[in-house]
């Protein structure tokens, strides 16, 4: 099967360094090591379901995605939806459909898991991202969250965006 220029591949424990590098470079927010390691932590008892992918442009890793299934607040069986924790693409490689492909992957996973909602936090001053998500069917839900981000070089405030389908 011929491969296109942009491809998605799994994240492995060995290339977690590349994965975190992309996020570090792209996002102003600092994530602790645990954030990355929990993808492979066998001892983790919380039984969270993660979705993660890396996007390659040619042979170069340029995009990273980490999302998880949101458990229902009341502890019921049905989940609330899928929450995108990070979705990042290196700046020079944007506008090439890489982010869309990552988002598409998440939407496919949603269908697979019978989910109808995708959530994401976006920093209040990150207009490009807000536009990007809105263009793809996301809507701002609720009020701005003051001081949502703790360790960040950007704005500490954030919006919640939601896509329903």
């Amino acid at each position, binding site marked *: 099967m011929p491969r296109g220029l942009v491809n998605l591949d799994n994240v492995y*424990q*060995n*290339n977690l*360094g*590349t994965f975190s*590098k*992309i996020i570090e*470079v792209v996002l102003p927010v600092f994530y602790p090591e645990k954030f990355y390691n929990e993808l492979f932590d066998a001892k983790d008892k919380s039984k969270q379901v993660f979705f993660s992918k890396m996007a390659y*442009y*040619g042979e*170069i*890793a*340029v995009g990273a995605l980490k999302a998880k299934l949101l458990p229902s607040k009341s502890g019921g069986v049905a989940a609330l939806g899928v929450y995108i924790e990070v979705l990042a693409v*290196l*700046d*020079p*490689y*944007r*506008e090439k459909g890489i982010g869309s492909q990552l988002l598409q992957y998440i939407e496919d996973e949603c269908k697979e898991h019978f989910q109808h909602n995708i959530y994401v936090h976006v920093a209040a001053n990150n207009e490009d991202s807000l536009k990007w998500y809105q263009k793809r069917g996301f809507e701002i839900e609720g009020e701005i969250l003051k001081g949502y981000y703790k360790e960040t070089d950007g704005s500490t405030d954030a919006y919640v965006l939601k896509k329903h389908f």
Partner: protein
Amino acid sequence: MSRRKGGVVQRASSAAIGRSKDDNNLIEALKLYEGKNYKKSLKLLDTILKKNSSHVDSLALKGLNLYFTGQKEDAESYVNKAIDKIKDTSASPIGCHILGIYMRNVKKYKEAAEWFQASLDNGSTNKQIYRDLATLYSQEHDYKKLLASRKAYWEEFMGYRANWTSLAIAHELNGQRQEAVNVLSKFEELAAGKLGDAEAYEHNECLMYKNDVMYRAAKNDAAKLESVLENLDAIEPQVFDKYGWLERRAAIFMKLNRKQEASKVYRALIKRNPDNAAYYKLLEVSLDIHGNSKLKKALYEKLQKFYPRADPPAFIPLTFITDGDELTQKMNDYIVPKLKRGVPATFCNVKPLYKTNSALVAPIIEKIVTAFYSSVDSKEQPTQFVWTCYFLSQHYLLLKDFSKATEYADKALEHTPTLVELYILKARVLKHIGLLSEAAETINNGRKLDLQDRFINTKTVKYYLRANLVEKAIEVVSIFTKNDESENGVVDLHLMEASWFIVEQAEAYYRLHLEHQQRLQELENEEVPTDEEKQNERARCIKELIYQTGKYKGLALKRLHAIPKFYRQFEDDQLDFHSYCMRKGTPRAYLEMINWGKRVYTLPLYVRALKDAAKMYFSIFDHLAESADEENEKPTTDSVAKKSNKKAKKEIAAMNKRKEEDKKKLKAYENDEDVLGEKLIATKTPLEDFAQYFYNAYLSDVKDTEKDYVLEFGYQLRCGKLALSLGALAKYADVHGKSDGMVGALTLCLLDKVKDSSPLDPIAKSLALKGLERHFPEVPLDKRDDADYDWIEFFTSNYDASNLEALLTLYRAHLTLVSDTNGLKEMIMNALGNQEPRIQNVILKYEL
């Protein structure tokens, strides 16, 4: 293994009748040995020896049994006992055979061969011994005896092709090419029509081998070459190695001066493999146009049309076009499409061009690529942008424009921080600037991107070692090693013969040794403080530094000693192939191995370890000589040293504990007695050690034309062999010219020893002086004892004084001829000005 031990029983049982009881028991014991029942065999042997303690065969067999049960020292003593009881070699054939097997197992091949031979001479009818004997003679390169044993074996067992092939090879090794061809032809005749598909490959190899021998025998004789060609045509349908066949055909045509036919063959070869640059070169020669750029250009233009995807037709013209505009055009056509495709290795492709004609090529390439760079948008064509930055950074690095190299490497890294190659490049740039720790950290960041990438893991380790961060290096390298039984991967790396790591580690340890030694000297030269607290602190520091200095020195030498062991192993590993290659029918590959085996001790890594070892052993020797001069060593009565007994004991215990911990961390072998190399550096005979472990092997393999005469000079001078030093100096001058700086430096070193005040033998001195007069009449030898003569002045006006190595040699030698070391130092600093920062740092830090 079982094959090697075979053979004894078979012959022994055949002659069992009419023997003494001891002998019958021995045969029982032999059978037990054969069945690997070593313990039972030993028991039986003990009953024989109880009655007859001088039963030679039993002693020998006991030794062999002990060897296989792991008691190697006892084994040796029993074998020696057996040998002592034998007059010359007049023992029973069985005894001799057993001794031969033992000797082969302990890798004493020469002795093994002697005992095998003795077994046959004393009447052994076991013809298998001839094969073992041939193997041993092959290993020892004793070709005359090899031929005799191969022949004897062949006469016994003519039914195997292997024996014919090996006989032919033995003939060839003895220079009897015609005999070799005859043997091979005879077998071909006998085998004609009887060979099945299974033997087809072996047959093809042997046919080609016969043609090889014929070709070598023919030399330039036209008639003989014709017959080689005939043979080649005849065997064509059976030959699998089509490249070899075509190459041979072309070579014969060339020798016969039938160049047109040769050129056709080369064209055929190019058609088979258009990416082999050698075929293009040979085609040029066969067309007689290698001196004519115009015709060559036309040729390559045509070839490029035939093979648009092949690299050589596009690349080779770049090597000979000298016209700037034309070259620019061609270069553009070569480089730009690659950059457009984002080929990472583009720079590596053009790098050889810088070597031959940098002045012409570098500006052209720079212009082309910077122009391309400014036409690329970092967002529109991101990969092209990154790889172009990568190219430019390497380009500037090669030209030693470090700031620009850094600039482009940084640009690329900022653009795409997920690309491992960029970290490697950035680290390389930092290394050349001399920032070794920063380089190591940079490459380590790259390593973290992908932990399963072994290449960058290895690179990182190397960078850590270069920065003397040995512990980090071990930590990183251990990710990929087997660490079951030890704390880290060092043991495994010794087992795996990872010589790159061990040499680098040795060098890092040596640098650490020098560093600690310097610190120690500085501290010792400082004034002793009056305050008791500070005195204690100082004494503690000194003790610590003494320990570290010694430890690193020992470790450096310890690691270096691992290298000859590997190479001895490489040499030994050939042993099995003397019979294996014959059985498999691969005579050509076998001969290649034989030729390789004669040169193992001249391979670059061995030479590197050799030179490092020379540096260390020479310095040990020089120190021994110095301390012998200073009869009264400096008193070690530090005022604080007189401590209460209890405290001292406690300190010693702490030190021992620390040593044990170090040993656990630093061991290179299981059950090693000298983990820290303390015994190695405590040697009183450094020159003999150096010769025994390192130098003799090198001397036996190296050709006269490629020998390191500076090393030879230093070795012989320290041995006090002035005439041999002079010989080395003269040879060096022949190769490098008389005005070479090194010639001057070595001349002064020699002259220093010839001085009247030098303690060497006067006859040797006058001989050396005569020799100097003959080889270097321009040197004012009579001034050697004139304290006012300015030898530095002489050196600078007669030799190339910008030769850094030569200046350093003079500086290290501490000559009495040259008392003004400051002047020398200044000259070194001047010479350093032209070097890149990395080298400057090394010399400033460790030499001056």
